[in-house]
């Protein structure tokens, strides 16, 4: 009665056909549906086609699968149960989950405690740590030195000449040939490849980096020079530089 032309039924009762085929209808339902098939050509055609498909699959099963023996399943009982299928987490997190069970309240409570603990640790850490104040080279401490130039450890040549002339016996290495560079003892410590030694050149006084009191003299008379060992190792560069600036400024 309700056939849409390609052998499939538009009838509402067509959806019951699988139950009829697989014999899952009650006796009463089966009789009623059989009565309907005799009156509905669409459902009858659908029943025929679906039964044919069902029997074909059954035949495939019987001919290709039924004769096969069940494979021997080998389970590695000795091995630890772990995540192989990507569905299990069996690490420490899983242990915690098992410990907590499925209680959502417990899990939320645990989460809040963890957050509070992290916040407490952060608070303690902030209050305990003392950040050392780094003395910096301020413009005020050496008004004659341009800030930008000071930042690059450079001083105008004129200032150097004046101050060197005024401090003939001061410690430290002042390269009078170099127009703008001032070398401190610490600088040579950080310069790569020098290994703490510098070749003395004309007009330059070498500092005894070995601390044995002997200094090389390249030009001019020998002087008693301070050893770098006299300088505390924990002094930082900027502090030394500012001291130098103060001395120069004075």
């Amino acid at each position, binding site marked *: 009665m309700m056939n849409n032309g390609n*052998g*499939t039924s538009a009838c509402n009762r*067509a*959806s019951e*056909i*699988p*139950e009829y*085929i*697989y014999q*899952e209808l009650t006796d009463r339902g089966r009789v009623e549906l059989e009565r309907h098939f005799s009156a509905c050509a669409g459902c009858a055609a*659908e029943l025929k*086609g*679906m039964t*044919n*498909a*069902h*029997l*074909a*699959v*059954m*035949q*495939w*099963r019987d*001919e*290709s*699968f039924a*004769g*096969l023996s*069940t*494979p021997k*399943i*080998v*389970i*590695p*009982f000795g*091995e630890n*149960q*772990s*995540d*192989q*299928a990507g*569905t*299990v*987490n*069996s690490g420490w997190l*899983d242990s915690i989950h*098992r410990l907590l069970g499925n209680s959502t309240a417990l899990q939320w409570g645990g989460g809040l405690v963890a957050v509070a603990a992290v916040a407490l640790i952060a608070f303690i850490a902030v209050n305990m740590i003392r950040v050392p104040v780094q003395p910096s080279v301020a413009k005020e401490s050496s008004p004659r030195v341009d800030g930008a130039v000071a930042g690059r450890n450079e001083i105008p040549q004129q200032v150097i000449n004046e101050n060197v002339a005024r401090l003939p016996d001061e410690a430290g290495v002042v390269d009078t040939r170099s127009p703008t560079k001032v070398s401190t003892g610490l600088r040579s410590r950080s310069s790569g490849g020098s290994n703490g030694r510098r070749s003395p050149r004309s007009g330059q006084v070498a500092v005894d980096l070995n601390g044995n009191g002997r200094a090389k003299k390249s030009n001019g008379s020998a002087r008693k020079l301070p050893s770098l060992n006299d300088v505390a190792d924990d002094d930082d560069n900027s502090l030394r530089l500012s001291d130098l600036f103060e001395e120069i400024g004075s």
Partner: protein
Amino acid sequence: MFINLTDEQLVELAVSQDPDAFGEIVRRWERKIFALCFGMLGREDEAKDAAQEAFISAYKGLASFRGDAKVSSWLHRIAVNKCLTTKRRSKTRNEEFIDDDEASDAKTLVASPKLSPLRTTESLERMDLVRRAVNALPADLRQIIVMKEFEEMTFQEISEALEMPLSTVKSKLYTALKQLRMKLERTSVEVV
């Protein structure tokens, strides 16, 4: 020893103290899971591997089993995932499942010894067409028709195993049979 226990009790036992209880689960389900894998994959060798891997995965994931779910549902889900992974892997290797023929025919189709050589050949061809038609179904429809035909589960059992409403199972089976029917009619497969 384990005969009177339900699947869920066996799993509980296997998780807590006795891994051998899982052996009973395997014995109860190995044939059905193998059938499911065979129907899903259409090849004996791959079905065996998928079933083996499914049980190993289930064993290794025992701790993840939710007590409120059914063991059948859990095992089917793992097995179907294994089958889909196998199929994807095969596609990646450019081994066409639907269109491959020669190599797999001999392994997949076991002809009845009662048939004459001519009938045997016809039967093999017909069964191969059915296998291709089933394999051409969408995975969700294929799974349901395989569970129905190969595992011979009732609608209610399928519904519980897939955690799906009964009406949805019926509707999907109806669609699967309808699509299968059309595919088979296109290739003129008739049951003899």
